């Protein structure tokens, strides 16, 4: 999928999440490649603010018409904000996977060692 967007300033997981860390808070979403593979996204099951999450465990669930994908947390932390706009407009992720972030986590541990930069992620696709 050479035509999917992969911004240089983000980090990526093998399971197609993107992550951006600023001041100990990680913003998490799914990549353009992932949204393309899923097709029309109709629903996002968001975590609750205040919920603690573990690295590698489910953070959110994204539903398309005939597929469903779990979004995994790239680190241990606490959910400090969710993109509530997705509740009414899940397709925002299809339109802009990097604008359509899912949750912000206050990190309480190290990031996953599997994170990749844009070049490595691109090579994986």
């Amino acid at each position, binding site marked *: 999928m050479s035509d999917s967007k992969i911004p240089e300033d983000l980090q990526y997981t093998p399971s197609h999440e993107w992550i951006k860390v600023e001041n100990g808070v990680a913003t998490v979403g799914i990549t353009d490649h992932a949204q393309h593979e899923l097709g029309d996204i109709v629903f996002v099951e968001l975590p609750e603010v205040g919920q603690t999450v573990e690295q590698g465990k489910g953070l959110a669930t994204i539903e398309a018409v005939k597929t*469903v994908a779990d979004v995994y947390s790239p680190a241990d932390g606490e959910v400090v904000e969710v993109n509530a706009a997705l509740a009414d407009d899940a397709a925002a992720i299809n339109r802009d996977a990097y604008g359509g972030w899912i949750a912000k986590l206050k990190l309480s541990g190290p990031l996953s060692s599997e994170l990749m930069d844009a070049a490595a992620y691109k090579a994986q696709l």
Partner: protein
Amino acid sequence: MFAVAGVSKFEDLVEAIPAHLRLARPLDLPHSQSEMALSRELRHLAEKNRGMSELTSFLGLGWTKHFIPAAVDSIVSRSEFTTAYTPYQAEASQGSLQQIFEYQTMVAEITGMEISNASLYDGATSLVEGMIMATACSKGRKGFAIASNVNPRWREVAQTYAGSNGWTFHDVGWEAGTGARDRAALAKVLAGHAGKLAAVVVQTPNVFGLLEDLSGLADLAHQAGAVLLVAADPLACAIAEPPGSFGADIVVGEMLGLGIPTSLGGPGLGYLTTKKAHLRQMPGRVVGRTVDAEGTRAYCLTAQTREQHIRREKATSNICSNQGLMTVAASVYLALQGPQGLAEVAEQCASRLAYVRDGLQGAKIRPLFSGTPFQEEAFQLPPGSRARVEAACKTARLLPGIWLSDLLPGVPTESLLVCTSETHSRQDLDLLVSILSSAGGAA
């Protein structure tokens, strides 16, 4: 054909089956029969039964005999409905899809709820599915405050599922006077298991045939962080305020009887209705309305990410089929009756029970409880009268009802659960009253 299949003989096609594992003999089954011969044999078996056309029956317990208008069978027999399958390809399955959509609408209306699924196997399994759903709605809680006056046959099925799911049942008994769930006992269970209850489970009418007063119950359940799961008789809902009006979260039940013959209890038709907010925890398939590429109204299966074929072990249920043809029967029945007809059938059922109750009063046979019955009620016969009643009924080819103590601990041995419907003539009712009065009257 073998050449096109790329082989020279049949054995080549099944070479993957090791030869020693293949069946080397004909199956030991009765010889092939002509349509005429097998029809004769099946008729012979059918004649060995004493159906309710031969017996005067007052059996109920959720499987109630009602009159089925001829139009129901005429539609249900159409092979367009019988020989289609799950409407996967919407463009070639609009008949079943729209019919299910209409079924969903009618069941939601009857129970006063927002949405319905496309049906479940039967009443008992609908209760179980409702309980599984309640655990999901409550983020994995496994305790149930369940009324002891829920149909014991349904509770037994729930019990079968309980062990493997780690469920705990906290029984809420019934009040000695009214037969309704014991409010004090419920309060005690709610207080004693705070934070662990997935649902408060009640049934209306309950096993004694009595309407449960649902007011305030949803608040109690919600305060405990649990959902309110109500098993409700859809016919009773035609005249009784439905669970949805009382804030129930999940409503389940059996629709057998409404266009569906009793048939030894199957196929029946389990239904499940709920609030839209709980859609993603709902089991089973569901049909939604949409449009085609030209904007024409259309229907298709939707919200499928809940289901086993997509979510596998994380699905809301393992159910794959629905009782499709039974939903056709119920839909045609409900459409024929309309709100007026359905209410009249319900009123007939209740009025005929009142007639029996009045008749029995003369013989001093009284209801076991003082609650408000719908079409079924437990009557207390004198101690030791059961054998006499059974003998008299056998002679009269009458099934007077269900002896409650055979099913439910804690009720007197001579409590007889009698179910009436619009199909009972005045003569039927008089016969029942007369037998119970003489054989079951004070000795």
